[in-house]
């Protein structure tokens, strides 16, 4: 991406990225692959909307449609939104706390490659006999009955990428706990760092149940276990519980970092300190906490009994309170500020009504008896696209514009940015607003077709037109990215002019060691404080200039992940019973993984030092991307 990298030649750049342990480059890897999966998931969404454009359409067949919605949901949640948010976390969070890197650079890279190979594995199902088709929730009875290997691609692929995500979560937590610069107390951390922290904690505690659920499914389908086999005493509700114990925190894993990005944007483009910073922090923690106690609101119609339904209904409604606290604090942040309508700010402004609309329908669904009507209807589809697209995707688009300069050193074109914004926003409301009414008019979700006699034709057509608008918006964004990269106009430390936190105090993109000298933090919004006090350098330092210790790059993460990828194929085809090569493949894959892990643990990796002289040379403008 950077000009220096281009000079190095393509092969060298690829190798550089495959061995990098630098959090900023890993961020770019997450960003590119997340973006790619977003386009894939978006194309799948377009196919859904084309199929539902009119009654009785035969653009997609019944079985294919189910594969497409399953892959759309799975791709968008696990392979697009999460990685894109992890990209911003990687790119920005260590800078915000004044760290030179994350706590475990090697694991950071391993986390990415596990996610990447897991995602590729999942998507290869399209070419190897069919994708999973039991919905992204993969409910056990249907999943067990599903023929072919689709479900196995789902379970194994998500297991691998889930490990990656868990590793990333632990890594961020340790980074924030241990690596904050002097003076960066918890209550001075920027809100994006805080939301990263809480979201990572949710990852830590929510992914294990999913992993166990996936294991059960693998054991059932591959080794004849009976967890979900009713005839053998199994119980499919176990899957539903395990999935949602994970699944509900998962939606907060998505929305909290989005809240973080918007918090930064509101403060920056209102030129104002976040109103009620403390309240925002505690609301974040509370949302994370409650997030673990409400999962059964996805299961109101399962028949858990009135007591369980009532308890979970009440617990769910409570979440509206801390979320409302956030909304009102943001409103009061822009109140009395000096609002400049840049592209990121437009997204932030649009986010508030969109997300509130999605949030309040969530509270309506929390009323268990009402949810008996709403559950599994298009009302639900409308709800979660309002919170996800109106919250998470808008945040990702906003973050893309906001942090583009920090990640790539150039500015996305503002005009095109606004074109994307308007197309996307209008398309979004056009698509999903009307779906509330479709649901109320009795349209179930996950239907590949509907009859003309149901009275849903016009609304569905409008919804499909909206999706087209969103697609145009995304295409304009892609054009914007290409044009910006070709033009390659470099920008300085603080291109938006009103940066408040530490990441804006250093060059865009930052040198590979981030801070030549560790900064000393003197309050919330530390860069803003220095700016207001007229500090030209933008930072006060906590240490004299000295040697910096850096980790070595490594190719081993790719090898470990690749081994898991290979082993998964072995496990998957071993199930067929007639493929003699499957077992060796499984063993070879595991051997690659464990072998490379062994190499890693036996070979000491002590990193290297950048000397003071090199740093001084750098400061005058030299090597910036860390190639040695």
């Amino acid at each position, binding site marked *: 991406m950077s000009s220096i990298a281009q000079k190095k030649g393509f092969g060298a750049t690829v190798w550089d990225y495959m061995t990098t342990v630098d959090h900023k480059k890993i961020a770019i890897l997450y960003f590119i692959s997340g973006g790619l999966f977003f386009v894939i998931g978006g194309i799948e969404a377009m196919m859904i909307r084309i199929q539902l454009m009119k009654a009785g359409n035969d653009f997609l067949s019944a079985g294919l449609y189910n594969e497409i919605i399953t892959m759309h949901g799975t791709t968008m949640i696990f392979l697009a939104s999460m990685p894109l948010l992890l990209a911003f976390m990687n790119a920005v969070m260590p800078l915000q706390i004044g760290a030179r890197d994350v706590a475990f650079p090697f694991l950071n890279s391993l986390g990415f490659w596990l996610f990447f190979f897991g995602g590729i594995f999942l998507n290869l199902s399209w070419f190897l006999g069919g994708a999973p088709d039991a919905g992204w929730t993969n409910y056990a009875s249907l999943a067990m009955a599903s023929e072919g290997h689709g479900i196995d691609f789902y379970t194994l692929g998500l297991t691998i990428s889930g490990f990656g995500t868990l590793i990333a979560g632990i890594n961020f937590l340790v980074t924030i706990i241990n690596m904050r610069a002097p003076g960066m107390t918890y209550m001075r951390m920027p809100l994006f760092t805080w939301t990263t922290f809480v979201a990572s904690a949710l990852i830590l505690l929510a992914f294990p*149940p999913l992993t166990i659920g996936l294991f*059960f499914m693998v054991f059932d389908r591959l080794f004849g*276990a009976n967890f979900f086999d009713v005839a053998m005493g199994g119980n499919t509700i176990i899957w539903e519980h395990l999935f949602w114990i994970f699944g509900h925190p998962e939606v907060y894993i998505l929305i909290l970092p989005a809240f973080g990005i918007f918090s930064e944007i509101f403060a920056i483009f209102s030129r104002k300190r976040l109103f009620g910073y403390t309240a925002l922090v505690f609301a974040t923690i509370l949302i994370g906490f409650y997030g673990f106690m409400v999962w059964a609101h996805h299961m109101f119609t399962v028949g858990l009994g009135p007591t369980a339904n009532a308890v979970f209904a009440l617990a769910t409604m409570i979440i509206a309170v801390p979320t409302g606290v956030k909304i009102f604090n943001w409103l009061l942040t822009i109140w009395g500020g000096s609002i400049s309508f840049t592209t990121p700010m437009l997204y932030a402004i649009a986010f508030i009504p969109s997300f509130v609309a999605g949030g309040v329908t969530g509270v309506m669904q929390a009323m268990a008896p009402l949810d008996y009507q709403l559950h599994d209807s298009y009302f639900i589809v409308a709800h979660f696209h309002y919170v996800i697209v109106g919250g998470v995707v808008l945040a990702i688009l906003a973050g893309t514009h906001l942090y583009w300069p920090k990640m790539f050193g150039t500015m996305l074109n503002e005009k095109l940015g606004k074109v994307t914004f308007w197309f996307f926003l209008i398309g979004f409301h056009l698509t999903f607003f009307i779906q509330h009414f479709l649901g109320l008019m009795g349209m179930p979700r996950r239907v590949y077709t509907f009859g003309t006699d149901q009275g849903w034709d016009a609304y569905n057509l409008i919804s499909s037109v909206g999706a087209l608008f969103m697609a145009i918006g995304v295409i304009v964004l892609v054009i914007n990215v290409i044009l910006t990269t070709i033009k390659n106009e470099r920008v300085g430390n603080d291109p938006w002019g009103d940066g408040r936190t530490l990441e804006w105090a250093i060059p865009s993109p930052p040198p590979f060691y981030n801070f030549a000298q560790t900064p000393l933090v003197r309050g919330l919004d530390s860069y803003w404080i220095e700016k207001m006090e007229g500090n030209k350098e933008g930072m006060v330092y906590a240490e004299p200039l000295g040697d910096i210790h850096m980790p070595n790059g490594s190719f081993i993460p790719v090898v470990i992940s690749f081994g898991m990828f290979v082993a998964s194929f072995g496990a998957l085809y071993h199930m067929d019973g007639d493929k003699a090569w499957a077992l060796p493949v499984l063993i070879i894959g595991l051997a690659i993984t464990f072998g490379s892990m062994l190499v890693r643990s036996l070979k000491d990796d002590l990193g290297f030092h950048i000397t003071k002289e090199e740093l001084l040379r750098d400061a005058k403008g030299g090597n910036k991307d860390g190639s040695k």
Partner: protein
Amino acid sequence: MDLNKKYTPQTWPDHPETATLEGKNKFVGFWLLLAAETVTFASLFATYLALKDKGPSGMEFTASGLFELPLVFAMTMILLTSSLTSVYAMYHMKNHNFKAMQAWLGITVLLGLVFLGLEIYEFNHYVHLGFGYTNSAFSSAFYTLVGTHGAHVLFGLSWFIALMLRNAKRGLNMYNAPKFYLAALYWHFIDVVWVFIFTVVYLMGVIG
């Protein structure tokens, strides 16, 4: 960090496992992993409890008919003792007494191996009785829960052995001290899980 830097008991830091930033990171990260493991095992226990004694109609084996306590008692004692021996190893690690640490770790590993052997014997015994993995939902849940614990024991043993062999020549330093410490933590955690296994699976199983 200098690998070749030699320490004496006098200069060895009070908390070698957290004396470096790397050590501190590993330490915090590992505890977080244990928190995640807690939830992992909770999911397994919960499923086991939900599926306990559930199977096809006319199922032959239930918990109360199957489990025998003497073997489990022996296994429990062995694992508990190995927890203590690893505490001894860490005591000597803190005193920078490498030889004694290796010796105690060696004993821990031996005890762990015996435990594992007994577990394999037990499983083998059940399978011979006709209580196989695919028999019923109960059997799947039982083997998966106890087997996952067994896999953790195996991993813990491999970890100890790898550390002992790798560092046999170079002795204790700031680079490997945190690793020894974490392996010992892991071993305690395995013991904690076992406490619940013998209580919830075996003891509560026997009383039906």
